[in-house]
Every structure is written in structure tokens, then in C-alpha cells.
């Protein structure tokens, strides 16, 4: 997992509430045997609609999703997080997240920035006035800002997830930070223990 300190990228206004994980990626897209390629199923039900925000070329390079409340409710599928990441998103900003989705995001390295509802509205207003405008999310300072100072506010994230993202550590990364303990243990294993190779 890459370290996340601060990210600046094109903001994408998703002006909907209660976007559950079935809407993020429908079940028919889950058959893949990889952890990549799920971008084709991202928001599948809306992608045929020419009016849908991701179909606007201005947002094609979007990396910061600004969503209405209760984003990521529903099933526990980790694929919802992978789909957003595979598409290119680094951050989702919302005033409320589904619990499991938020947990999965933290593990996979997608930053979920929890803000006040009025901050979401302010970001939407900013993007209406500046389509394709950039948003900076600073994890170190826990702030969301826009280049012209239209929005400058703070966001919430639990300390443990913040630490892991700042250090770029997933569960495996954390275990590997104890690599010397593992190597020491391996050095003490009896020689007669079975091996497959």
C-alpha cells in the first residue's frame, strides 16, 4: 500500500444519497478472479446515462469523489472499494459512510473523509462554479481545501486508520513490519518439519 499524506485531484460531485454497494458495483460484476478490472462495473446502472457525472469528459480524470450521505451502505463486498480504486479514485468525501465499506476502505488504502453535510454542499457548489476543479485532501492536517480557498474545512477519520494510511500499512504491511520476529522464529524451526518443495 502506498503512503498517503496529501492528495490533490479533480473532484467529482455525486449528488445522490444512499449509494449502496450494489449501486457501486452490482453482483454480476463480482465473478472476476482478480482484484483489478472492477472499474467496468463501477456505478454500472448509471453509466449508460449520458447525463451521469462520470460520462462528462471534464470528470474523466476524477480522483476525489464527493458523495451524498450514507455512501457505501449494504453488503460487505470488498469489490466496492476495489471498483472505486480501479477506476482511479483516491478519496471519497461524504457526511456519512456505511460501516463495513469504511472499514474495507481503510484496509485497502482508499481514504474516506467524513465531513459535515454543509462541507459536501460547499464542495458541490464549488464544483458547479468550477467544473473539473481540484480538491486537496491533506491527511496529515485532516483538512479539505480548494485552490481558491472556496472551501477550507476539516474532516474526521479514526487515529488508527489515519496512522496506517500515513505509513502506507495494510494488515499485511503491519505484520511485515515485524519481519525480524518472523525471521527469528523461522531460524528456530526444527529441520524435520515438512516442506512441499
Amino acid at each position, binding site marked *: 500500500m502506498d503512503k498517503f499524506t496529501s492528495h490533490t485531484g479533480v473532484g467529482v460531485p455525486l449528488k445522490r444519497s444512499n449509494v449502496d454497494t450494489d449501486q457501486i458495483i452490482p453482483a454480476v460484476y463480482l*465473478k472476476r478472479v482478480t482484484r483489478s478490472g472492477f472499474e467496468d462495473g463501477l456505478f454500472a446502472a448509471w453509466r449508460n446515462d449520458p447525463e451521469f457525472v462520470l460520462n462528462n469528459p471534464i470528470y474523466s480524470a476524477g480522483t476525489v469523489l464527493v458523495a451524498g450521505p450514507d455512501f457505501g451502505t449494504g453488503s460487505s463486498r470488498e469489490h466496492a472499494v476495489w471498483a472505486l480504486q480501479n477506476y482511479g479514485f483516491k478519496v471519497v468525501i461524504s457526511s456519512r459512510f456505511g460501516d463495513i465499506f469504511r472499514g474495507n476502505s481503510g484496509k485497502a488504502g482508499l481514504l474516506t473523509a467524513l465531513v459535515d453535510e454543509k462541507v459536501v454542499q460547499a464542495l458541490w457548489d464549488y464544483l458547479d462554479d468550477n467544473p473539473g476543479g481540484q480538491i486537496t485532501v491533506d491527511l496529515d492536517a485532516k483538512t479539505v481545501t480548494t485552490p481558491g480557498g472556496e472551501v477550507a474545512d476539516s474532516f474526521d477519520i479514526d487515529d488508527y486508520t489515519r496512522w496506517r494510511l500515513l505509513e502506507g500499512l495494510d494488515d*499485511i504491511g503491519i505484520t*511485515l513490519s515485524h519481519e525480524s520476529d518472523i525471521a527469528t*522464529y523461522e531460524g528456530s524451526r526444527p529441520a524435520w*518439519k515438512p516442506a*512441499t*518443495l
Partner: protein
Amino acid sequence: MGRTLSEKVWDEHVVRSTPGEPDLLYIDLHLIHEVTSPQAFDGLRLAGRPVRRPDLTLATEDHNVPTVDWDKPIADPVSRTQVETLRKNAAEFGVRLHPLGDENQGIVHVVGPQLGLTQPGMTIVCGDSHTSTHGAFGAIAFGIGTSEVEHVLATQTLPQAKPKTMAVTVNGSLPEGVSAKDLILTLIAKTGTGGGQGYIVEYRGQAIRELSMEARMTICNMSIEWGAKAGLIAPDQTTFDYIEGRPEAPKGADWDAAVAHWKTLVTDEDAVFDRELVLDAAEVTPFVTWGTNPGQGAPLGAAVPAPEDFDNPQDRVAAEKALAYMGLEAGTPLRDIKVDTVFIGSCTNGRIEDLRAAAAVLEGRKVDEHTRLLVVPGSVKVRLQAQDEGLDVIFKEAGGEWRGAGCSMCLGMNPDTLEPGERSASTSNRNFEGRQGKGGRTHLVSPLVAAATAVRGTLSSPADLAPVGADA
């Protein structure tokens, strides 16, 4: 204070222990199959991580594979993709794979012990709940999810909270004609499917000591059906004899060192379990399930229970639903239940001893004309050994189908499934709704009961059969 067997094995594998955090456990053997591994390998690839210990990892193809025409490409595209993905991943990450067609291919929990890779005192994991099977050798063995598969591939460790310990002591000896499957089904019916929740269970007592390794595997296999994290049995001479001489068993001085250590793997006299259960082996009789969870079982001599027989309101509702799904009426003698398909196989009862037991019943007899018998060996080795012993001929002459190795009808991921409404007597471990095919109805039974049922066409034990040669 002394320690239990599982505590000893656990302590030997702690890489790192910090108060308030789960222990980091070292994993001695990681078994892999096609269904739960693809995303784990892809996760490694995305993060640019290698498999830390390919030499402690073994892959085989089992869940999806066809049991006929296994030399041809797999017809179902999703199954084929999963199997092909496993082959690519194994090649790319340097993992040993026993693919379809290889003489060591088979159900992952049959292959490990058969190769001698499963040994006492080990930690063994696999992305499959019936990993508990390997506990029969005195190992801590349990199933894990795909994220954990990736964790073990990358680090050869797993963070784990220490489970509680339970002892199940089975006193006395099992009566003639009663098998390990009857014993474990009886235990599950007594304790319910949640009875073992949160525990590593040690099975002990005279009846357990008297079991063969294969029968012990049947017991530990179904630990998961009563909710236990894992089940294990202390290693003894029976265990050592089973392992000695197998391809991956220690040899020479290594063997002596290994056995010396294995002999220390017993629960100390003064060790204390968090919970203890005691069973009398003499009371166990041939046992079958009538419902849709493994705890809904009864002695073969009993009748289908009525929902009112249960005191607990939840059990009553569950029984009502189960009877409706199973198409059974309360009060019907279990022996009168007609069966369409008999399935002998799976990681519970697909080993050579199971096939021998079934063949002994079927020898000189015919499968009922309205019943289909499917015999699926747990591994290619089991298939070849059975053929050497002529068991395949007995099954075929009786009118049964003799198949290739795999999970097959245990979970119906390959083409071997029940039709809606069809009823099976199955030596596997799960009788959930739709497990063996949409709308299929499963009765869990032992290999002896399965074989006798095939002959009579209704749930039966060998004692119900007319002697061979007598008019039926």
C-alpha cells in the same frame, strides 16, 4: 499448571505476543485450492509481494473439477477460469500444484495426510472450513478467508486471538457396525450446531484412541459442523504408524527427532479445559440427519420428529421449516424414507477405509433399481488404491458409478448435483438447503449406512440387509 495439547501447539507457534493484541502465529503448512485463492494471489501481485514460503505451501484442484472426462477441458467456463487461474498463479509464484490428471490430485484434506505432509504439532490453514480434518494428527488446523489466505501467502503468519479449550471425552468402545460418522453426528445432534463456538476441541477417551487415523479425520472434519474453531486428537502410535514411510514424512534421524517431540504433545494431567463434555460410546447407534442442518439428526431406528418435540421455540421453528423443505412427515420411520441418490465421497468419508467399508456391504449385492449410487474417491491415490483392491469392480457390479477424484456432489459446484426435490443419502458433512443442488434434499450418513441404503433404496444399515445369496 499443566497445559492442554492445543495450548502446547499454540505456544510453539507464537511469533509475537503483545497484551491486548491477537498473537501472531506461524503457519507450518498452507493448503490452497482454486476457489478461494485467486483474489489473494492478485492482491500479492498488486502489492508487488512474493509468496514468503512457497516451500510451506501446496495447491490442488478439487472443488470445481469434473469427476468424468477429467482429461478434457472443463466445460463450465467459470470453473475452467478458476482452475486455469490457479495453474497460472502456482507457476508464477512457484507453488507446488497437483492439477487434474496428477496422481496426487484430490480433495485438499485428503491429499495433505496422504502425502505425509500433515503431522502432529503443526499449524495448518486453508481457505476452506473443513481444514479441521488435519487436527486428527494433533495439529491445530482451521479454515480462513481469502484476505487471510493473502496474509499467509505474504507473511507465513496469521494474527489470531487464542480460542478457549474444550475436551470431549468418549468413554467405552463403539459397538460393532457403528462408525466414527455416527459418533460425530450424535455429538452434533446433542450439542447443536453452535455447541463448539469459540473452542478448540480435543477429542479423547477410549473410543477415540481405538479409532483408525481415517476415522479420526472424520471426527475432526465435522468439528466445524458444531461450530468449533478446530478439533484435534493427541498423536499416538496409531498416528506415527500412519505417517511413517509416506513421501513427505521425516526419515532416519529426523524421524526419531520428530517422534520424540510428538510424544510430548499430550494434555498434561493437571491441565484445565474451559469446558468438558462426556459421551458413552456404547450408546451410539447408526445415526442419520432428517433436517437441513447437521444437528438435526436421530438414530436410524427412530422416526422423523415433530416440531412439538422440541422445547426451544427456535428449534421448533427450525424443525418445521426443515420438514417442509425435506418433504417429510413427522412420525415417519427414518427407515421408510426413500432415497434417489447415494453419494459416497467427500473429505469426511472419501478415503480408502470408507470405500472398503462401503464395498464390503455392496459385495454380491445390487443397488436398488430406483436408486443411483455415485462413488467419488477423495483423491486419485484413493481411486488407484481402490482399483488395486478391486473395489471399483464391486461398486460397478452392484450397479454404482465409479468416478474421478474431487469434492463432487458434496457441494455441487461441478456437474454432479441433485435435481430439485431429489433426495440423497450422502457421506458428506453438510445438509444445508440446496447444498447438493437447488431444491435437493440431503440426509447425512456413514459409508456403511450409505451402502445399505443404496441396496434397499430406503435409509438402512447393513443389519437390515438379507444375507448375501438369500432371496431379497
